[in-house]
């Protein structure tokens, strides 16, 4: 269940008082991130919103609560249906001091699975969510309230295991109360890391998530995520990022639906400030059948060359071209070409350089 208020005034009040709060010995760190993006049709038959808007204006507050806990609050103003609405993204109590080698989050947060879902959208290396992310987690990512526990195993290599359980009344990025599920959203993740030749490193995660809705419909997700980086000096020379997910939806009554989606994003530095990457995005419903019960081949594919300019780590300008095609047996291919733009900036406390 999501806290939500059409209260731009609240946003302003918190923001305006930030400087007064930051030096009072509380350790409060305040930052704000603004993410604007737009998609424009390149042909008259293409489909896009044809407008450039603020997707999120997010305020992030982090501080130690006491000797044991930290508090995190991130709240974002979104433009939805022509109106800017303000909603809590994350609000949780966290601790890495309670149990050795462990982290705990209690409250509302983006579920700790996959790659994109663990990052705020303005931190992604491309503009719009791949199809698999939109279908399985929502355009922004799946968030919910509950408990997440992570344990760093005492092995001679990095292996962290996490488990979480959340309300599950809603799933994804919902704006309604939802309904009490038969089985709440529960998930697990194991992630490992290896150094690679040439100052590189790669992180590989294995993920599982499941939920049985009030209706009795079960959803199960399984997936892998990968991020590999090579840095030289202060420049990210090469980034390889990808995820592959399969979802199984088992209705209480009806046929099982299985879907598969994946994306891969290689990006290379052109200069210290320009990067060029290509998002390759694929999605298919594996169990799609026609009225006669015959299997229907189908897919949606995107190729999105993306040029990024970063004047510093605090601002990003992006330009992309999205060429997509939706295919289905016995139907004409549906092609679409879109130009995408994005501008983001962060002010306030220094952001973390997450791997």
């Amino acid at each position, binding site marked *: 269940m999501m806290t939500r208020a059409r209260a731009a005034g609240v946003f302003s009040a918190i923001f305006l008082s930030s400087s007064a709060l930051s030096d009072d010995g509380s350790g409060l760190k305040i930052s704000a991130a603004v993410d604007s993006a737009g998609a424009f049709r390149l042909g008259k038959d293409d489909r896009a919103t044809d407008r450039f808007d603020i997707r999120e204006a997010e305020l992030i507050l982090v501080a130690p609560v006491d000797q044991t806990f930290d508090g995190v609050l991130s709240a974002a103003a979104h433009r939805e249906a022509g109106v800017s609405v303000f909603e809590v993204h994350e609000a949780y109590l966290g601790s890495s001091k309670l149990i050795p080698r462990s982290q705990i989050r209690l409250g509302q947060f983006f579920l700790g699975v996959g790659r994109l879902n663990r990052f705020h959208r303005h931190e992604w290396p491309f503009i719009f969510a791949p199809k698999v992310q939109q279908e399985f987690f929502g355009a922004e990512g799946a968030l919910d309230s509950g408990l997440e526990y992570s344990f760093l195993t005492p092995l001679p*290599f*990095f292996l*962290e295991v996490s488990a979480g359980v959340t309300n599950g009344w809603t799933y994804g990025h919902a704006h309604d109360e939802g309904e009490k599920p038969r089985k709440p959203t529960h998930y697990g993740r194991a992630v490992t890391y290896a150094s690679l030749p040439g100052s590189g490193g790669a992180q590989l995660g294995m993920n599982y998530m499941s939920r049985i809705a009030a209706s009795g419909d079960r959803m199960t997700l399984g997936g892998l995520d990968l991020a590999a980086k090579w840095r030289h*000096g*202060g420049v990210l020379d090469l980034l390889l990022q990808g995820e592959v997910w399969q979802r199984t939806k088992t209705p209480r009554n009806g046929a099982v639906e299985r879907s598969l989606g994946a994306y891969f994003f290689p990006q290379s530095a052109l200069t210290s400030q320009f990067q060029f990457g290509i998002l390759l995005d694929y999605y298919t419903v594996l169990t799609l059948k026609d009225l006669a019960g015959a299997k229907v081949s189908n897919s949606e594919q995107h190729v999105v060359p993306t040029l990024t300019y970063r004047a510093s780590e605090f601002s990003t300008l992006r330009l992309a071209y999205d060429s997509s095609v939706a295919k289905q047996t016995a139907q004409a291919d549906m092609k679409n070409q879109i130009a995408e733009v994005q501008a983001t900036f962060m002010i306030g406390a220094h952001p973390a350089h997450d791997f």
Partner: protein
Amino acid sequence: MTSKFSMYLIAFATLAGSAATAFADGKVQVVTTIPELAWAAAEIGGSRVEARALLAGTENPHFVDAVPEFTRLVAEAQVVCLVGLDLEVGYMPPVLARSGNADVQPGGKGYCEVGKGVEVLEKPTGPVDRSMGDVHPAGNPHFWLSPKALAAAGREIAAALERVDANHASHYRLGLETFARRLDKLSTEVAITLAPVLAAQGAAGDRPVVVEYHKEFAYFFAQYGIRSAGSIEEKPGVPPSAGRLVEVSLAAKSGGVRVALAAEDNPVKTVAKFREISGLPVIVVPTMIQASGKLKTYPELQAHIAAEIVRALGGGQALQ
């Protein structure tokens, strides 16, 4: 059943954590961000300490990711030493938090931020904001190239070692004294090597002969009395514009500068452009000890930087 499971989980985590953070071979496990601090900890702690650095020495220390492997190493440390002065602000807070090691987090007995023991240079006196580039509000954090500053940092390391291994406090105090004497002797030797630089800049030091790309040699210069003509960067951390490059190149040449100093992680093309416009030799040197390089100890690094400057000043071929 759930509560029983939770109890087992907590017990397992506690035992595993305790086992992993126990003193391996009786040695205090020290993790530092930059290699210089690991070298210092090993010198001070001697046989009682096992020290390792998170960085390999080839990175730009401003732009480092919170690599998962860092988290694993920090989870098993009794002492974690940082440069401080906001140098590691991008990656150490998440690394420390994710380690689940309360002892080495800020306020813990094994947390050691050595910058607070150093006499900091270039501390801004007025308001600072990001339009000025990568300005550190607490001052220039690149102090480790000064033996005097590193000796001061050593005091913080020794204090942390005493806190976690109080039974051997006298061992660490003695180690600190020996460490300080070694750095003092080293600086005397390096100063002799650098004598031609001081001679070239005049008795009053009013004819600077060196310029640096980024102000990361400030402490080295201050230690040995070398006057810098400034930096090629106009704003720290921001690549200079073409106009700035031309301006600073011509000013350096006409001002009598004879050598430019750059770090290995500085942008190669920009440094090459400066060399092309100014016609001055540019020496590119490591600014940290490198685990896989030739310069594995601090004295070797100091001697190398000094020798390269003098060689370039004397008309010898500069490193590329």
